[in-house]
């Protein structure tokens, strides 16, 4: 009978209508909604990302990553920290071996063509570290003709020799911890990179090294996200805003860099914007 079948259809439509409100748009895979996260961090930068003897990771970047992951509803025991180097950050994101990168990852226009950047969660400044006895180097321009440590995949030495056109002689290295060792062994004359990184190493190296204290750039530490994950980027930015609003950013900066001479900025940085 017509009436009965139509009635049944109407009831079905009604039931489906109820579930309609719960329907949401499906998009490309995003870090939003993931239960577990693999986060790329540095393993050799004291104060930022350092692997401890017991295998755990510690530092400002690691703590910020934990905070952001918590805001993405990922339980602390569902985060896996994966060591990355300056040279492997883009590939690790690209091939999916990490979901996010918190690894003193300066936002540059060139990198922004390959990854999407959340944040910055902090704005550092590039400075230069030399041996304590070396008084000839007082600003980045004095690096002309000197040996400058060049970490593969890092932007810092490019700022000096390419962007500022200062004719330093490059001494290649794989990481900033290697650079600091080379500086002490006189295999390089200077290590030029972000003040936060230098501060961590200077605290360990003690009186053997000196920071020139002539900062010359804005290094905006971005959160590397797979290219195109806009909802992930927006969620991460909200978490960073929250981190500054609730005082966590100030506390973490104090925790990791409070004992250095650095001027810490506890105001939310200008975001890059999600593309």
């Amino acid at each position, binding site marked *: *009978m*017509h*009436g*009965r*079948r*139509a*009635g049944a*259809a*109407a*009831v*079905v*439509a*009604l039931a*489906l*209508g*109820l579930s*309609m*409100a719960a*329907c*949401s*748009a499906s*998009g490309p895979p995003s870090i939003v909604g993931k239960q577990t996260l693999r986060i790329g961090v540095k393993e050799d930068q004291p104060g930022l990302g350092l692997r401890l003897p017991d295998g755990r990771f510690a530092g400002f970047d690691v703590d910020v990553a934990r905070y952001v992951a918590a805001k993405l509803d990922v339980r602390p025991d569902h985060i896996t920290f994966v060591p990355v180097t300056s040279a492997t950050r883009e590939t690790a994101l690209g091939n999916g071996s990490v979901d996010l990168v918190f690894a003193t990852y300066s936002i*540059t*226009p*060139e990198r*922004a*063509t390959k990854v999407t950047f959340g944040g910055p969660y902090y*704005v550092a*400044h590039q400075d230069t570290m030399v041996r304590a006895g070396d008084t000839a180097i007082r600003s*980045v321009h004095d690096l002309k003709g000197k040996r400058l440590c060049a970490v593969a995949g890092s932007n810092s030495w*490019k*700022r000096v020799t*390419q*962007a*500022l*056109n200062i004719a330093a002689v490059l001494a290649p290295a794989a990481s900033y911890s290697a650079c600091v060792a080379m500086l002490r062994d006189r295999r390089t004359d200077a290590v030029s990179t972000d003040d936060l990184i230098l501060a961590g190493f200077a605290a360990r190296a003690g009186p053997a090294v000196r920071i020139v204290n002539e*900062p*010359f*750039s*804005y290094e905006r530490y971005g959160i590397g996200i797979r290219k195109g994950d*806009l*909802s992930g980027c*927006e969620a991460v*930015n909200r978490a960073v*805003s929250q981190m500054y*609003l609730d005082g966590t950013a100030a506390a973490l900066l104090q925790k990791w860099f409070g004992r250095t001479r650095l001027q810490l*900025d506890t*105001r*939310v*940085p*200008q*975001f890059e*914007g*999600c593309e």
Partner: protein
Amino acid sequence: MRATTTPPPSREPHRWRNTARFRRLGLQTTPGRIRALAAVVVLAIAGFYFVANIAVGNARDGLRVIGHDAGPQVLATGDLYFALSDMDSQVASILLTGREHSPGTRQQALHRYNRDRATANRAAIQAAELSADDPTDQATVRSILDGLGRYERLASQAMVLDAQANHPAGPPPRNVIAVYRQATDLMTQELLPPAYNLTLEGGATVREAYAAKRSAVLSGRLWVALAGLAVIAALAGLQTFVTARFRRRLNLALAVATLGLLLLTVSAVRLLSDQAAHLQAAKTSGFDSILTMARARAISNSLHADESRFLLDPGRADTYSLAYLDKSQAVLYAASRNLGEYYTALGTAIKAYRANPRAVRFLGFYGDEARAHPGPAVTTLLSRFQQFQTDDQRIRQLTGAGHDRQAAMLVTGHSAGSPGYSFDQYDQAVVSLIVRHRGTFDQTIRAGDRELGRSVVGNWSVVLPLAAVGAAVLVAVGIRARLVEYR
């Protein structure tokens, strides 16, 4: 009146029709069956109303967020950022000029500074009104205004010290620079970032609302069509039953209800299709480009200020020129390792674009814009950006050769042919594109509003419940005359 007094005999009884439950529902009698069928029809009408109401509500919410909340918020905060950034730019210009201002230039810069401040206040109030339901955003706007007060004190202090110093064009004395550093740091680290982040947040809100609401409107359209069909089928069933049982041709009330619901379903489906199209047009042809250009304008003003700061504060010259390069690359990305290479790469990229506007070989804000809206307006924008960069190159060459004074005079001038003039021309090209996209945006939002009905006639929040109730009443009227026969 009907002649028959006895109800038509029941057909061959079916097994389940004799169950207790069946009898309890009264379905073994004709009036019982009519009532049951009518109940199904009324339920279906209620279902239709429910589904259509949700779908139309989604369309309305989408339009409200995109067209009336977050969209205007992006424009207001974009204006706020520009006005703030330009204030600092004017202060730098005044300090750079020193005593060598040609008649009126200092006055002009001061006038612009005051105008910017008024614009900033207005935009801040507007942004605060638009974020009335978001206390965090409101607090952000308030803190920007508080900071602006502190900024103004520092800026006037710097300008007073500068006037006392009575220096030639070029970098002012150290005490002036020290105060200006405090002012510009306050501006760039405390006032501008939250303003820019509010713009971005508006963009994120729109993107999310668009994705959610448009797909909800489209799936709502499907459900409305299904529910409409269900009601019509139920009505047809009732009609068939009644006409067969009572040997009548047509129940007029039921027929009117069926026709009405058919019309309602068709127009609801059409409305939802149109709404989805308006949302799409407002977002992709209007809003996205407004956001891109508002951000480009903000970053451009800030890189223009970096150009002045580079001349003003030699101690931070490296910082400001590196920031200038990064920001230029964000506006239009052409692969290059330093400013010298950038000027060349920019020239090549724009030349290639002119030769073939379909093949955009650069990225950044203008890459997006050129891909989305190829045409003469973008070509003008690109030429003016290039002219501004050419002037920048000239200024840096002058400072490089030790002609700081000449460079400072050039950068602060606003007469035709000067770099200040070329920046103003460039900014006008940016603004005219924003105005154009704004036109498209407003037009689609207005069309959407009109269809959802700001007026009573054609207002869906009135039409929908009236039609549903009307249909239910018609069903009641239609079966009442038949049921009366059993009294």
